[in-house]
């Protein structure tokens, strides 16, 4: 961990657009803040998780209206949505229902859900970078 005096605050004004960009596209918040290597790393890793998940027949269900018979499905869909634009792009390309008969169906769901959940951590990290808490 570097000394706090070596950290460079990007400025609190940058925090909100950085968080929005980080949600829209994994790593975009860090690219906006000038953390190019980190941003490209997030873009590659989270993008690959999501794309592989969709390729493995993941179901990209919209979490609303809430189906109370299956509340965990709402949480899973919400996690998938946290990846931002790739989720909307995949849905608009027709990757919605998935294929429950595919042997990779649950793998696909797991990959896309974990990608979204990790992107929430990336959004929080972009906020911390913007306000100077992280280098």
């Amino acid at each position, binding site marked *: *961990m*570097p000394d706090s005096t070596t950290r460079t605050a990007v400025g609190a004004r940058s925090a909100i657009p950085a968080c929005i960009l980080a949600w829209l596209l994994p790593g975009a918040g860090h690219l906006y803040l000038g953390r190019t290597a*980190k941003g490209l*790393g*997030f873009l*590659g*890793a*989270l993008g*690959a*998780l999501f794309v*592989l998940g969709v390729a*493995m027949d993941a179901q990209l269900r919209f979490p609303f209206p809430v189906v109370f018979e299956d509340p965990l499905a709402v949480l899973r869909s919400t996690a998938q949505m946290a990846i931002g634009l790739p989720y909307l792009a995949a849905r608009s390309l027709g990757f919605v229902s998935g294929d429950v008969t595919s*042997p*990779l169906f649950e*793998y696909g769901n*797991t*990959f896309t859900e*974990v990608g979204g959940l*990790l992107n929430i*951590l*990336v959004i929080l*990290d972009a906020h911390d970078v913007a306000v100077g808490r*992280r*280098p």
Partner: protein
Amino acid sequence: MASHLALLVVFAGLVSTVFALLLRDDARSRLRFGLLCFGAFVASVFAAGWLMYPLPG
């Protein structure tokens, strides 16, 4: 691509990359932490697999 082991390795590699970028600040410690995290993922899956081996299928 239907190999469970291959999917485990891909998943562990990608998640370890994100954890390393999030939790460490310089390239050397990121590499060390990423490899440690990847190894922990793979080893824990093998350990869980062996623990479940006696259970009836």
